[in-house]
């Protein structure tokens, strides 16, 4: 199973294996290039010796022989280097948390906490909406009360006005004067009847 070293990739911005592959390919290219360089230098040198018996083919065989040997060692040494670098340098120890992930240390059971918080917030929002509309209703009633109070006070003033009129025209106690008035008008009616009877 391949260890994707994703956490290392999160830190470095590349996967360690890619980094090593990049280095391997570059090193290998250099090995080949320098080998070809060696061979071309030798060929050039051989041009300088007319009686030289070495054919380019022979030289190529020598190159391949040396390269084969070098390549074997190169691969062995490189895989050792890769192992060491992947373990000691390009890796993030298990107990290490990257700075951007610190928050996971503070809130380990975040999924449950998140859900609970969302529920709580939802409930608070509901409560706030309820309070807000209750507040509106209360203020609306306050306004209404002002109007009603003004009306009721007007009625009371009206009664006061009534009483003031009574007081003004000598009828301090309305009930008595009303009784008095009723008696008076009754007396007047009797007198009227009397007069009518006499006049007949």
């Amino acid at each position, binding site marked *: 199973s391949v260890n994707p070293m994703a956490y290392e990739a999160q830190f470095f911005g590349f996967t360690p294996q890619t980094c090593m592959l990049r280095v391997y390919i570059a090193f290998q290219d250099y090995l080949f290039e320098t080998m070809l360089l060696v061979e071309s230098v030798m060929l050039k040198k051989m041009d300088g010796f007319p009686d030289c018996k070495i054919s380019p083919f022979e030289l190529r065989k*020598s190159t391949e022989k040396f390269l084969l040997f070098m390549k074997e060692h190169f691969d062995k040494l490189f895989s050792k280097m890769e192992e060491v670098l992947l373990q000691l340098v390009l890796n993030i120890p298990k*107990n290490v948390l990257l700075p951007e992930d610190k928050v996971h240390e*503070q809130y380990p059971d975040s*999924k449950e906490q998140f859900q609970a918080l969302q529920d709580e917030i939802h409930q608070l929002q509901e409560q706030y909406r309820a309070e807000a509309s209750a507040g509106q209703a209360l203020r609306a009633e306050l306004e209404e009360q002002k109007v009603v*109070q003004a009306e009721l006070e007007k009625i009371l003033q009206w009664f006061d006005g009534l009483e003031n009129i009574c007081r003004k025209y000598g009828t301090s106690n309305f009930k008595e004067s009303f009784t008095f008035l009723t008696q008076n008008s009754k007396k007047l009616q009797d007198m009227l009847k009397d007069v009518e009877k006499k006049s007949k």
Partner: protein
Amino acid sequence: GRAQVFATVVDTFLEKLVAAGSYQRFANCYRCFYRLQPEMTRSIYDQFIAQLQTSIKEEIQEVKNEGNLEALFNSLDKIVEEAKNQEEPAWRPSGIPEEDICSTVVPYLLKHKLYLQKVLKVKEEENRKVAESVLAGRDRIAELQQRIQARKHAWQ
């Protein structure tokens, strides 16, 4: 630190590679040329090794620059140093992003919750005061109605 280890490991690799490709080995492989020109062979070998080392060192430097490795190694050393008392394996991405994101948002949700609790309290206090005035207003209206009723009965 990591940078040091990295440099040491690469140098060791290079040393061992050069040791493996010894001059004896080289002369042995190029025996035909060696017999003709032993000094030439030696100088070509020395150039070969020098060129190989230079190329590999340049390559390593390039990889370091490209990946900004020096800085990354130093910063990783610091992060590891800070976690040295941490015994337990640390958190790692679960592979379920919508779950992992929770931790990032939770601290802000907590703040948001506190804010909502605060404004709710303010609102409740505000409403309590208004409710008091409403109740007082209701009492006042009841009292006015009573007085009106009394006056009305008196008149009646």
